[in-house]
């Protein structure tokens, strides 16, 4: 959960950077902000790329409950 919170925090930081860039900034400051912004943007991108779309299903066994991967394709077959 904290990783996602990070993403949102980073995004808010990025927003601040862009907001400042929208105003009148000196060139050095603009380049500074760009550096910072790009770093944040790349971090966000990495996070997004790394997020996998996993689908699992709960299974009750004699030893308890666990999760195992769920084949969504099976659903399609069942409905045909």
């Amino acid at each position: 959960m904290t990783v996602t919170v990070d993403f949102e925090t980073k995004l808010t930081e990025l927003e601040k950077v862009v907001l400042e860039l929208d105003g009148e900034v000196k060139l050095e400051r603009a380049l500074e902000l760009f550096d910072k912004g790009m770093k944040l943007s790349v971090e966000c991108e990495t996070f997004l790329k790394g997020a996998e779309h996993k689908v699992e299903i709960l299974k009750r066994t004699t030893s308890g409950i666990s999760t195992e991967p769920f084949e969504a394709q099976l659903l399609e077959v069942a409905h045909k």
Partner: protein
Amino acid sequence: MYSAKSMSPLHPVLSVSQLTAQIRDVLEEVFENVVVVGEISNAKVYSSGHWYFSLKDKDATLPCVCFKASNSNIKFRIEDGLMVIVRGKLNVYPPKGGYQLVANSLEPVGIGEWQLAFQQLKERLTKEGLLDPSKKRPIPMLPRRIGVVTSTAGAALRDILSALERRNKLVNIVIANARVQGEGSAEEVARAIQDLEKIADVDVILVARGGGSIEDLWSFNSEVVARAVSQCRVPVISGVGHETDITICDLAADLRAPTPTAAAELVAKGSAELIERWHYLRKRMLFRVEDRLIRARQKVLRLSPVHGLNRYHDRLKRERMKVLHDRDRMLHAVSNLLSKAQHSWAQNSQQLQALNPQNVLSRGFSILRRSDGHIVRSANEVSDGDILEGILFDGSLKLVVIKKEEGQLPAQSDCVNCARAVEVIPHTVSG
């Protein structure tokens, strides 16, 4: 058989049991199939599952019982004041000397059985505060893991998965399979919710099933599901039935969605929006920085020597243009003047030409001049014997005045060698 008609002093005396038995026979035979309407009072539900109550109206009361076997299908609870239609048969209970109606079905008056049950449960849960709006928790903006309680055999799951697939790859899903209608389904749903909460580490739970009749949806109106939803420590979104169906599960959940697909989209919305926001911010940042650099570059160019020279060059060009332009204007003006002068000269020339004495002379007039050069206009200016010069258009004559005569012009037919008086034509001289 005791009968009022066959009263006789020798008739045997009946025992209480005997009499009661006869009463029972009569009553139970006649009132074997009764349908009666009345108001419930003294309602009691025993732990055995049997229901005891009285049906009454203004003037009479009828004790009733509904045994567990009969009442297990009844969706609503008996409560005092409820108007019901009861079907059953009369029963005499000898030990107490009373009769009662053994009900095999009850139905409420003026309201459907299902609606009544729904209302009763809703009231009960509301009283406990389970449906309180202040108890609703906010749905997390960015759930990492979503739990889904639904049947793997149902269409709802397919809809949810495809909606999430479409909008949002950031989200993981854990499915807890549960039957969504039929005997025992309410308990399965409740258990599924609890399982997800306990072991699956999910940020939000979706409870979903597709549309159906009120009977089909009934497990989602059950107390066990309501309590499971309410007690769940993870926020619950309920997407049960069609848009117009409202179940107790919907009311107990932290958020109600009109359909399973809508529920999925609600959950995924936050992350999808974040992703869009990130895209936009990135674009904007790049644009702003590029813009800033362009402006800086322009400023540098403006201040550079080359730029200065260029501007000087431009200025020179401009001045040159000005000079050329003025020159042209000057030429043009001069040319105009020249034309005007020429024109004027031509005019004057013509006029002069018109005044040329030769024209007059060629018409036959002559000019008379004295030896002192004076041009003779008047007869007074000459005397007889004077020598005059006579100028004709093609030559001159030396003349002697033979005789002068004053007065008007002589007639045309005269003088071959006579000088004619020079006619002064006023307008040509003064013209």
